[in-house]
């Protein structure tokens, strides 16, 4: 296995607040890596550092053997990394198909519009949005918007996909469906990092899990190891039930 992404000692500050504090990890090609932690732990900020929305004050991001620290988000995207947003950002006045075409046409393969439309329809079919392709994106409901967000990212056929809480706000059956979708995406050869709060899902789907707390990496390991890690349970003490659930899953 080869290393697809290496995050080295990345630090991001906002004024006096250290949102991400000397975080380092490696990601193997083909892996699904879970990223968990309490609210405000710096998970989304770390994503923003990885895909170029923020430039970290310290540390490096190495993607496909290339130092991409300080690159613009559009360059990172064109180099093969796609992401979804925690708060969905549909291009409301464009159709669902056009939304996905943007991903396909401007991502790493830079397909022309004809090709992009074909790719978009494939992805929409795969994610069960095909019959809504001609609707305006603004008219979708939340679950559909989440899938649209994923479709746009997927349509670029990235090497690495960053998923920011794609399960939040979905009902249990939708969650089960989405978990299968994420696995299917990985089976297509796309490496994934996902931020998630739905614990049983992330435990189920991840090969490995990182835990962030107050901007620091406090644990790293398989889902079983994480569930039994006392530091992790402590970090979640604000929500004792959650710790309990973690223990049950791990056991």
């Amino acid at each position, binding site marked *: 296995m080869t290393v697809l992404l290496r995050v080295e000692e990345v630090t991001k500050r906002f004024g006096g607040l250290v949102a991400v504090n000397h975080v380092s990890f490696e990601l193997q090609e083909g892996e699904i890596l879970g990223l968990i932690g309490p609210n405000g732990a710096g998970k989304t900020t770390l994503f923003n550092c990885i895909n170029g929305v923020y430039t970290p004050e310290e540390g490096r991001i190495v993607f496909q053997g290339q130092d991409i620290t300080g690159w613009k988000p559009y360059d990172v995207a064109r180099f093969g990394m796609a992401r979804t947003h925690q708060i969905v950002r549909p291009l409301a*006045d464009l159709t669902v198909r056009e939304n996905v075409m943007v991903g396909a046409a401007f991502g790493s393969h830079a397909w*022309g519009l004809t090709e992009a439309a074909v790719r978009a329809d494939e992805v929409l079919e795969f994610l069960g949005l095909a019959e809504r392709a001609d609707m305006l994106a603004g008219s979708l409901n939340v679950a559909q918007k989440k899938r649209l967000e994923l479709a746009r990212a997927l349509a670029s056929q990235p090497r690495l996909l960053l998923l920011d809480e794609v399960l939040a706000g979905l009902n249990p059956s939708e969650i089960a469906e989405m978990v299968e979708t994420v696995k299917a995406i990985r089976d297509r050869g796309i490496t994934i990092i996902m931020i998630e709060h739905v614990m049983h899902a992330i435990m189920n789907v991840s090969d490995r899990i990182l835990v962030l707390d107050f901007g620091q990496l406090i644990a790293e390991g398989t889902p079983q190891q994480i569930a039994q890690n006392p530091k992790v349970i402590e970090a979640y003490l604000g929500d004792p039930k959650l710790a309990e659930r973690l223990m049950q899953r791990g056991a």
Partner: protein
Amino acid sequence: MSQRKPALPPAFRLADFWPALPGRHWANWALPLLVVLGLGFFPLLTGKDVHRETMFTLLRAVVMAVSLNIILGYTGYVSFGHVVFFGLGGYVGFYLVAVQGRSLWEALLAGGLAAGLLAWLIGIGILRLRGAYFALVTIGVNEAVKAFIQNFDPFGGPLGLTMNFAVYKAYGGPRAMLQMTYYVLLVLAVLAVLLAYAVRTSKFGLGLLSIREDEDAAEVMGVVTPMAKTWAFVLSAVLPGMLGALFFFRNGSIEPHEAFPLHLSIEAIVMVMLGGQGTVLGPVLGAAGYQAMRAFLLTNRYLKDIQLTVSGALLLLIVLFIPAGLIGWLRRRFPASRRVLL
């Protein structure tokens, strides 16, 4: 590990400016073109000079509105001082003809080039500003250029320049010149519509629309936004620049207040809003509708004194109640019309 940036796909290829949107309908370009040609040839049927002059004003509005729509309607950036491109193109073109003795054709080319160059130079800087800040800075640019030209001696300073009427001999005399420049304007209007259509249905245009809807999301999807915005600005500036060169050649004189009137920019915005921003047909209809309304108000015995007030009230009603404009409203109200109306 290589330190050099690897070869990323180019931000835009030439082919990305070509209409390629799947599902586009021939009516998308034919309808606006038909309206422009219909309006354009109307005075030739009647053969009356007064009709031709009315249509000259109307087609001028079409070129301004359709061009402005590329940055305003497609990209979502409110260029309030867009008239600066009209004025600069006008001055450059006029200077070449009246002072340097060049031909109208060279003037048109130079006017368009100067406007495009200005857009490119300032675009990189000012297109970083979003929302009202961008609108404000374009007003500032227009006023700064106007104030500079008032002090710029080669362009005649505050008095401007006048044309020696002998120049028109080369174009068959003043009468023939008026007719000929009308045709040139018609060509510019056709070009504007074709350009607007090409951009709207190209990959480049899809990038612009994504910027309009959510610029940060567009960046994350790989749209090279600084370059896209700058080219949108340039493309929306070139035809107004050529229009300026043509207009002032025909006018026979140019002075700063005539070349850079802010209200001309704002009128163009109103036309785009009226017809439907972001559509191809909308600004054409908006320009025609706005000019028709103005002509009606100005010739109406009771309304002509307060025509500005009536226009203002109409604008307010549109902004408050139909912000998508005529075509935008139709597309929303009758989704089936979306295929044909663009």
